[in-house]
C-alpha cells in the first residue's frame, strides 16, 4: 500500500484501519462520495444508520460502553449539522468521539455553496477541538492529533472537517512518511504544574481522620479513568467509606455493596441525598457538581460554610471543573485511578494507624436505606395489580440476573431514565449508558445499537419512553439490519412523562403539550421493520412478553402500556438542597430501631 499514491479519502481509511476503528458509524452524501468509494474498496466496516443523529449516538453508545473513541462520518451541510445534538451530548458527558465531516470543495467555502454549513464554527463551543483541513499534507497530522485528543485527559468529541477536493487530492509521499510526520506534534504548550494527589496526601488523610460523617461521591470521571473502578473497590474495602454516585458514575461501584448508597441528586435515593446534605466531609472524585447534584450552587456553597462546615475535597482530571461551581477546600488535579492508587499506597503504609470509626454515621444512613426499602416494599404490594415503571425495571433486572446475564443497560431521557437509575442495580462500569448532561431525548435507541455492536456477547436492554423513541424511531431499520440482541422496553404512559410531572407539581396541573394521545402501535411499527414485538398492559402480560424478549436471539420490542401517571420520587424541587427532597410516604415509615 505504501508505494501506490493514495488520495485523501484512501488516507483517511488507511488511518482508521491503523487505529483499528471497527466499526465507523455514518451516512453518505455528495461531498463524501470519494470517502465512501474508499470504504467500498477497502471493505471497511461501516454501519449505515438511518439519520446522522443516529450515527453519532451509536458512536456514543460504542464509546461509552468501551472507553474507545467512537468514530462517526457525515457529509457536509445538513449531514454535519445533524450531528450537532450528539456532539453536544458527548461534550457534556465527556465521551470520546471523532466526527469526520465532509465539506464543499475549498474554492467554494464561504460562497454559501450547495450543502455548505460552517460546521467548524457551529461546533466550536461543543467540542474539545475541531479542525478544517485546508492542505492535503495536513490531513494525516490532523487526524492523528484529533484521534488522540478524543481520549487525552478528559475525553470528549473532536471534529475534522474535510473539503471534498482534499478527499480526492493525491497524498504527497507515502502514508507511512505522512504518519511519521504526524506523530511529531505541535508547539509545546505551557501549563501550570498540576496539583496532584502526592502533594496533598497529608491534608487529605487529616480530613478523613477528623470527619464524623464522610461521604465519597463518584462521577463519570471514575468510569472514564482506566482501572479506576478496581482501585475504587480496594479503596472502599480499606476505608469502608459510604459512596454516593452521580448518574454518570452509576455502576463504577457495584450497587450491591453495603457501602453503596446509590445515585444522588435531583432524583437521587434518600440515603444518598441525605448523606450529601449532611456529610461533614465530601470527597468528590470525577464529578463536576452540576446543578442536578447541588441544587442551587449558592445555597450549596453557603451550607458548606456554616458552623458544621462541610469540608470538600474535589479530585478531577480537568482542573477547570474544580472551583467552577462549588468552592473547594482541597483541589486535586488527578486521574481518578491515580488518586485512589496513591491514597491507597499511603493507607497501606499506615496500616492500623488509620482505622477510622464511622459506624454511627453508616448506621444512620443504613437506617434511611432500610426505611426506604420498606416504603418501596409497601408500594410494591399496593401496586401489584398495576403495570408501573418501577415494576417493569425491577422485573427486567431480576429476569436478566436469573439468566446470569450482565446486559448493557441503556436509557433514553425522562421519567423511565430516572426510574432505571433508581431501580436497576448495576455492578459493572460502562454498563449503564444514558444521556446525563445534555438530557437528549432520542439518545436511547441509537446508543443501544452502538453498545450492542461493541458487546456482541451480551444482551442490551433499552428502556425508552414513547416520546423519546419517536425522536429516533427510524433506527429500528439499523437495528433490524444488524440483528443485534437489543431488548426494547417502550415505557408508554401516553405522555412526555417528566414534563407532565413538572406541570403537575409546579405548573398547577396545566398539561401544556405534554400528552401524546395518538401513539402508534409500537409492535406493529417494529414488525414493519422486521423486528418482533408484543404488547403488555398488565403485570401478567408483561411477564409473558419479558420471557419472549429474553428468549429471542435478536432484537425484540415490548410495548409497555403503563397504568396511571407515576411520578418520579424522590424529587429535589428546583432551587432546593439535596436533603430537602420530596418523597411521599417516607416520613410515615417507622423510625429505624436503635
Amino acid at each position, binding site marked *: 500500500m505504501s508505494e501506490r499514491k493514495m488520495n485523501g479519502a484512501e488516507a483517511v481509511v488507511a488511518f482508521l484501519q491503523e487505529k483499528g476503528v471497527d466499526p465507523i458509524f455514518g451516512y453518505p452524501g455528495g461531498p463524501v462520495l470519494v470517502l465512501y468509494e474508499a470504504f467500498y474498496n477497502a471493505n471497511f466496516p461501516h454501519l449505515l444508520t438511518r439519520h446522522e443523529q443516529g450515527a453519532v449516538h451509536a458512536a456514543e453508545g460504542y464509546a461509552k460502553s468501551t472507553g474507545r473513541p467512537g468514530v462517526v462520518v457525515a457529509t457536509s451541510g445538513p449531514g454535519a449539522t445533524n450531528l450537532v445534538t450528539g456532539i453536544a451530548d458527548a461534550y457534556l458527558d465527556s465521551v470520546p468521539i471523532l466526527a469526520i465531516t465532509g465539506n464543499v470543495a475549498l474554492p467554494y467555502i464561504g460562497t454559501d455553496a450547495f450543502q455548505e454549513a460552517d460546521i*467548524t*464554527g457551529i461546533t*466550536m*463551543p461543543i467540542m*474539545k*477541538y475541531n479542525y*478544517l483541513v*485546508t492542505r492535503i499534507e495536513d490531513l494525516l497530522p490532523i487526524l492523528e492529533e484529533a484521534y488522540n*485528543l478524543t481520549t487525552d485527559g478528559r475525553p470528549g468529541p473532536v471534529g475534522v472537517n474535510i473539503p471534498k477536493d482534499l478527499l480526492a487530492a493525491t497524498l504527497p509521499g507515502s502514508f507511512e512518511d505522512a504518519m511519521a510526520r504526524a506523530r511529531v506534534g*505541535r*508547539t*509545546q*504548550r*505551557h*501549563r*501550570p*504544574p498540576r496539583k496532584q494527589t502526592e502533594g496533598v496526601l497529608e491534608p487529605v488523610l487529616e480530613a478523613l481522620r477528623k470527619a464524623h460523617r464522610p461521604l465519597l461521591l463518584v462521577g463519570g470521571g471514575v468510569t472514564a479513568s482506566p482501572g479506576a473502578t478496581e482501585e475504587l473497590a480496594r479503596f472502599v474495602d480499606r476505608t469502608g467509606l459510604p459512596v454516593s454516585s452521580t448518574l454518570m458514575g452509576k455502576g463504577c461501584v457495584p450497587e450491591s455493596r453495603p457501602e453503596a448508597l446509590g445515585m444522588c441528586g435531583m432524583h437521587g435515593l434518600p440515603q444518598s441525598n441525605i448523606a450529601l446534605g449532611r456529610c461533614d466531609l465530601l470527597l468528590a472524585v470525577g464529578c463536576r457538581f452540576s446543578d442536578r447534584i447541588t441544587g442551587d450552587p449558592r445555597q450549596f456553597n453557603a451550607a458548606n460554610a456554616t458552623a458544621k462546615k462541610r469540608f470538600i475535597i474535589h479530585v478531577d482530571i*480537568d*482542573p*477547570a471543573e474544580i*472551583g*467552577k461551581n462549588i*468552592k473547594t477546600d482541597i483541589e486535586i488535579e488527578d486521574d481518578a485511578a491515580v488518586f485512589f492508587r496513591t491514597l491507597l499506597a499511603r493507607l497501606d503504609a499506615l496500616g492500623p494507624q488509620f482505622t477510622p470509626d464511622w459506624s454511627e454515621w453508616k448506621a444512620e444512613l443504613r437506617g434511611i436505606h432500610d426505611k426506604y426499602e420498606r416504603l418501596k416494599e409497601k408500594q410494591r404490594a399496593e401496586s401489584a395489580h398495576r403495570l408501573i415503571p418501577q415494576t417493569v425495571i425491577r422485573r427486567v433486572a431480576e429476569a436478566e440476573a436469573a439468566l446470569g446475564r450482565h446486559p448493557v443497560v441503556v436509557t433514553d431521557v425522562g421519567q423511565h431514565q430516572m426510574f432505571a437509575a433508581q431501580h436497576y442495580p448495576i455492578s459493572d462500569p460502562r454498563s449503564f449508558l444514558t444521556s446525563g448532561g445534555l438530557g437528549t431525548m432520542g439518545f436511547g435507541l441509537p446508543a443501544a445499537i452502538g453498545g450492542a455492536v461493541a458487546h456482541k456477547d451480551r444482551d442490551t436492554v433499552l428502556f425508552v419512553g414513547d416520546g423519546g423513541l419517536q425522536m429516533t424511531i427510524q433506527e429500528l431499520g439499523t437495528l433490524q439490519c444488524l440483528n443485534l440482541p437489543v431488548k426494547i422496553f417502550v415505557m408508554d404512559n401516553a405522555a412526555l412523562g417528566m414534563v407532565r410531572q413538572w406541570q403537575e407539581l409546579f405548573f398547577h396541573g396545566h398539561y401544556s403539550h405534554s400528552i401524546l394521545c395518538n401513539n402508534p402501535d409500537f409492535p406493529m411499527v417494529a414488525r414493519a421493520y422486521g423486528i418482533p414485538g408484543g404488547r403488555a398492559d398488565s403485570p401478567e402480560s408483561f411477564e409473558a412478553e419479558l420471557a419472549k424478549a429474553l428468549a429471542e436471539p435478536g432484537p425484540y420490542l415490548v410495548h409497555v402500556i403503563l397504568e396511571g401517571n407515576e411520578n418520579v420520587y424522590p424529587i429535589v424541587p428546583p432551587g432546593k438542597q439535596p436533603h430537602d427532597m420530596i418523597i411521599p410516604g417516607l416520613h410515615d415509615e417507622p423510625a429505624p430501631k436503635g
Partner: protein
Amino acid sequence: MLHTLSVLVENRAGVLARVASLFSRRGFNINSLAVGTTRDPAVSRITITVEGDQDLVDQITKQLHKLMDVLMVRHLSPGDHLTRELVFVKIRSTAATRIEVLQIVNIFRAHVVDVSPDTLTLEITGDTEKIEALQNMLEPYGILEVVRTGAIAVERGSRRMDLEQPTEENEEESNP
C-alpha cells in the same frame, strides 16, 4: 477589580473566535481585548482585561488553558506591569474653543492628528485612568467619536512571556 490577562496563542485561523466564544459562552465579560503578533510570527499575543474577583480570573485562566491553541496564560499582577491603550477622540471644536482644547491636549500629552473647521481629532496613549480623565475633560466640548484599541500590557523588569525559555515563573499560574 480590573484584571489583565496576557495570553500567547498559536497564530492560526479561528483562534480569536475560540477565545471570544469561550468568553461569551461562559458568560465572562471582556472589558477589552487586543491582539497582535509577537516576535515569532507563528505566535500571537492576546491581552484581555476583565472585571471580576480572583475566583473568576482563576476560572478564566483554567478555561483558557483547555484551548488547544493557547500556549501560555499569565495573570499580570496589579502594580507589576504597565498597560497602555491607543485612542482616537474626535471632538466638536471651532475656532472659538480650539485654544482651550489644545491646552487640555498639551496637559495630557496627546496629539492633534486631524483638524477641520468644526472638529479636532486627537491621538492619545495611556492607561485607562488617563484616557478616562481626558474624556472627562473633553466631554463639555462634545465628543463625537472615540476609537480605542483596548489595553496591551507588559510586565516590569526582566519578567516576560517566553515560550523558548519557560522559567519557573513562566509556568506559574496567575498572580502570587
